[in-house]
């Protein structure tokens, strides 16, 4: 096998049909995998969201009974209804949780942008030989366990935590601040864990920017601040948009941060779905919550993909 020249015969031996077969196989294997383990499960979620909860295994009804033939299938469909979705609109817990998830996601995206932009800007303006190291310093926390990074803040923000100890020692406060188990802690946790997702796209758009444009703007009488506002910000817009979507979309469904850093008043839909499933064992309602969450996310996901597509086209 080592010598390519000798293998020509057996390589082309299978001929055209063999080539087609191989290509079909190469496409089919990942395709079928994703259909079976990504797309079909969504239809199962959709189906169960239309079912009723039942004390049984599995804990919902109806189940499709193909042994009954056609009547089994019609029976099955006639028992599906939108009851769970009606339930979601009737109990304020759910729509409040959706609203508060979106609100928390929007606020924390803005905060992440405010913290991340100066870092990305500093990286892009740093000497070229530093940049790979700075990049690695941003990426390293991103590879470190998410759970551990959230956990690290529990020790800092608690009532006896390091932050309160320092503030008390400095005499800035006289009684410990309650930060852990509040929304403030959730915001800190989100900004901390999602920061690399904001920095990296902004950095890559700032790094590509031609610096002589700034010089030109300054030569033409712009102040530095004005040049930044009128030239740098618009040119880094694709990075800003990509970063904001990369933070906002997953934060809406976030579970770990609100359950470890948030309090009982922190309402987020990912946590509601988790509790509906694991504590209340109400699978149909959990599925309905998931379907609505997906519908909310479809808009930002489509906008995000369009932004990415436009950017790739602009590069070509």
């Amino acid at each position: 096998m080592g010598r390519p020249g000798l293998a020509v015969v057996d390589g082309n031996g299978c001929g055209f049909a063999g080539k087609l077969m191989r290509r079909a196989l190469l496409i089919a294997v990942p395709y079928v995998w994703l259909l079976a383990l990504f797309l079909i499960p969504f239809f199962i979620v959709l189906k169960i969201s239309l079912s009723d909860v039942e004390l049984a295994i599995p804990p919902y009804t109806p189940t499709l009974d193909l042994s009954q033939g056609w009547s089994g299938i019609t029976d099955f469909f006639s028992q599906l209804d939108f009851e769970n979705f009606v339930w979601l609109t009737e109990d304020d817990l759910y729509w409040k949780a959706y609203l508060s998830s979106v609100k928390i996601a929007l606020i924390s995206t803005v905060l992440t942008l405010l913290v991340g932009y100066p870092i990305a800007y500093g990286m892009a303006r740093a000497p070229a030989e530093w940049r790979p190291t700075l990049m690695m310093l941003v990426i390293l926390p991103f590879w470190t366990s998410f759970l551990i990074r959230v956990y690290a803040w529990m020790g800092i923000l608690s009532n006896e935590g390091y932050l309160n100890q320092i503030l008390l020692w400095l005499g800035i406060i006289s009684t410990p601040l309650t930060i852990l188990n509040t929304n403030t802690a959730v915001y800190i946790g989100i900004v901390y864990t999602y920061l690399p997702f904001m920095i990296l796209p902004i950095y890559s758009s700032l790094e590509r920017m031609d610096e002589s444009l700034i010089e030109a703007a300054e030569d033409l009488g712009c102040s530095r601040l004005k040049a930044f506002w009128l030239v740098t910000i618009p040119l880094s817009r694709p990075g800003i948009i990509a970063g904001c979507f990369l933070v906002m979309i997953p934060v809406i469904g976030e579970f770990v941060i609100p359950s470890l850093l948030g309090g009982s008043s922190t309402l987020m839909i990912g946590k509601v779905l988790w509790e509906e499933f694991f504590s209340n064992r109400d699978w149909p309602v959990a599925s309905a919550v998931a379907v609505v969450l997906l519908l909310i996310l479809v808009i930002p996901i489509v906008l995000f993909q369009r932004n990415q597509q436009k950017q790739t086209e602009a590069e070509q």
Partner: protein
Amino acid sequence: MNRLSWFNAVSLTLGFAFLYIPMVILIIFSFNESKLVTVWAGFSTKWYGELAQNEAFLNAAWVTIRVAVFSSTLATVLGTAAAYVLVRGGRFFGRTLFSGMIYAPLVMPEVITGLSLLLLFIGIGLDRGILTIVLAHTTFSMCFVSVVVSSRLVTFDKSLEEAALDLGCSPAQAFRLVTLPIIAPAVISGWLLAFTLSLDDLVIASFTSGPSATTLPIKIFSAVRLGVSPEINALSTIMIAVVTVGVITASLVTKRAMVRQKQDELAAARTE
């Protein structure tokens, strides 16, 4: 522009302090003598010793490593195939759906992915355990592998493959002898990414694991819910150390591969 302005220096310093101080504190307090995590009582490695005695954590760690090895290897094969199909496959039936299924899991909330996979496994009567976690992790991490590999495939010169084909290679040989060596760094970093994603994952594993298989993040999460403990600090420190060594090694390997490739290209250009 060879010097940092004071503004950039300040923002970089503050930014990296924000990113690293929490982890540094975590590591320091894993060596604390006291059971109280917030009070320093002298240097000690006793929590590492206790960790080594903790059967439950060791078992969970072993499950986690097995799941990560299997799922990342499977995800690398499937993800590389998917990337190749997307970049070089041309038009085929359902291509849009295929690329949608590759990109959607990247931003999909984990609670939805976990719930839907669990309902699938129950629907087909598959017992929850290591196998179901491997299947679940493979599915979402193959998409990350495919994005990493396809970004490398897009930038490399297609004519190299065509030359190999013209010289009598079969497509399989052209892939093995030409394409694979060139995209190898991307494939390796894809594998590493899939491995750490699997190592990290709490939400999807919680949905798809059964009583027979508990992973380390699930164990850590249930311990952490009760509050901060020095044992978890010790465990976190070990995990941070492993990841740091892994990432630095990977970036050195990629850098060396890129330097060598540059040299080869230069040499090739000179012989022309």
